């Protein structure tokens, strides 16, 4: 990272920190965007950088939300422990699902993750602690380290923002490391990566578990923001939404999932009053993205910027 881009990063982080000091945008909505942005970044690590399309990431997001909700509400665990337990649950689940799914490639991989996530959904419907159709409501946000009261939306915002930045930094670090280079090699040409002596299955599983863990972190945090964990969080619609966020923003780019999450959550918030239109719009954006817009918003902007530079230099 050179000096100029470092300055941009500092400016962007500071701008995020200033968001509570305005009242144009509802701050809880910003927290939702941040949770989904983290979720989409985690997903992008798998789809954009490893080339694996999981259609079951709601399982990790939702089960972490349930575990955090149950521990914090029914057993009175402190907030940090609840989030940690939720995230670890997602990691363990990610290990099980990942181990099964990486046994097949491509389209089968997507179908297996979808089917296993649907099994998690049915379990969530039947298990006693999830509260069935009602879900877990009124999850207490608690206090952070026993000091900061998270009932205050501003305090909660800074907490969510910190979680998001940590998660984003982990993804960034993973992508820009030798580990990330191997993942990209697997994405580009799996047989060649294998022939170079990399244990492809282990790298895939590691990427899958890391992605599931961060998705769980996002789910746990979301359950505290809305103080709610329901069947919606484990439904395949959420798995589809996170695919859309990544695709629309630009898969394989660092900022794409963030832009995608912002766009999709903003759109749904705008359309939520009018029945099924948000589903229709989501589907239509999917179709348009796949047919005409495969690089996504950030990918297209990046390509346009590169074209511009090339014309100026030539």
């Amino acid at each position, binding site marked *: 990272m050179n000096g100029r881009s470092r300055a941009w990063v500092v400016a962007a982080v500071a701008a995020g920190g200033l968001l509570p000091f305005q009242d144009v945008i509802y701050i809880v909505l910003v927290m939702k965007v941040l949770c989904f942005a983290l979720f989409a970044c985690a997903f992008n690590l798998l789809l954009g950088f490893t080339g694996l399309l999981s259609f079951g990431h709601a399982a990790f997001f939702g089960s972490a939300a349930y575990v955090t909700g149950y521990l914090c509400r029914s057993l009175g665990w402190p907030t940090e422990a609840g989030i940690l337990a939720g995230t670890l649950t997602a990691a363990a689940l990610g290990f099980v699902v990942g181990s099964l799914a990486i*046994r097949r490639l*491509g*389209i089968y991989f997507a179908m297996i993750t979808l*089917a296993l996530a649907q099994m998690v959904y049915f379990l969530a419907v039947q298990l006693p602690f999830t509260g069935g159709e009602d879900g877990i409501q009124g999850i207490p946000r608690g206090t952070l380290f026993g000091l900061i009261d998270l009932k205050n939306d501003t305090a909660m915002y800074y907490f969510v923002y910190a979680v998001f930045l940590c998660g984003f930094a982990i993804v960034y670090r993973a992508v820009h490391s030798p580990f990330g280079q191997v993942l990209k090699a697997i994405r580009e040409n799996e047989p060649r990566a294998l022939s170079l002596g990399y244990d492809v299955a282990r790298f895939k599983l590691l990427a899958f578990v890391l992605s599931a863990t961060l998705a769980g972190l996002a789910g746990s945090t979301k359950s505290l923001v809305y103080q709610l964990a329901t069947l919606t969080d484990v439904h395949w619609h959420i798995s*589809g939404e996170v695919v859309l966020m990544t695709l629309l923003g630009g898969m394989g780019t660092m900022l794409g999932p963030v832009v995608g999450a912002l766009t999709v959550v903003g759109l749904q918030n705008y359309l939520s009053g009018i*029945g*099924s239109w948000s589903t229709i719009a989501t*589907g239509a954006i999917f*179709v348009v993205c796949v047919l005409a817009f495969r690089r996504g918003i950030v990918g297209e902007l990046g390509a346009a910027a590169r074209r511009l530079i090339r014309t100026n230099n030539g």
Partner: protein
Amino acid sequence: MFELLGITPQGLVAQLLVGLINGSFYAMLSLGLAIIFGLLNIINFSHGAQYMLGAFAAWIGATQLGAWIGNPEFSIGYWPALVLSPLLIGASGIVIERTMLRRLYHLDPLYGLLLTFGLALVIEGMFRHWYGISGENYEVPESLTGAFRLEGIGLALPKYRLWVVAASLAVCFASWVFIERTKLGAYLRAGTENPALLQAFGVNVPLLITAAYGYGVALAAFAGVLAAPIFQVSPLMGSNLIIVVFAVVVIGGMGSIMGSIVTGIGLGLIEGLTKVFYAQASDVVVFVIMAIVLLLRPAGLFGRET
């Protein structure tokens, strides 16, 4: 022995029949998916939505169409619908293939999955917008109302349900004969193996691909019409079913037509039996079997390792 387990033979037979019916739907839908996958190399995520469209087309024909054209007496009965609805929905599938899917063949097959997923959301969203999620009733045709009574063991088998099993088995078997025993079917299999070579022999492969997609979609719509009198006709009827069918496809592997049929029916029966012995697990049993198959035989029961 049955009494010891708290299970009556009547209950067992009834659940087996339910399992057989679900199995027939799994078989028809996974057969369609396998045919489409063979030539297009994509997984048709909108298969569930097209099954739903088939049921809705029949319901609209029977109850709504008359009012729309200003003649309330007019309605399309079950038997014409069984032919017309698959034709109509199959034609709409051909339009989708020609206008959208065709552009994706040079790309990673995952884009086809994403496109059809988006289409499924649009179709389901629109029907939810128009008709809500409560579901509509579709009458069993008059000639198939009532039940066969087996007086000996005090059992009643509804005629319509037997018809569904018979019709879907017949359609599956006819598809198998068509693909394995006719010249056009041979082209289809050749296209699955090596489309470039087939084209070099002068066969119109793009047309074959369009036809395969249309046929797979029509099969889904046919299953939808058959399902209409049993289940509620609702916008969500397809989406939950299709995920189970995906698991069925993973278990069977998409390499063989007969494999899809056998796996579909077998899993329906297993699901029915699970309802008798341990009802809580009946929703997840297919997924558990999928996990076991992946551990023991990753390519699927009838699949080939690629």
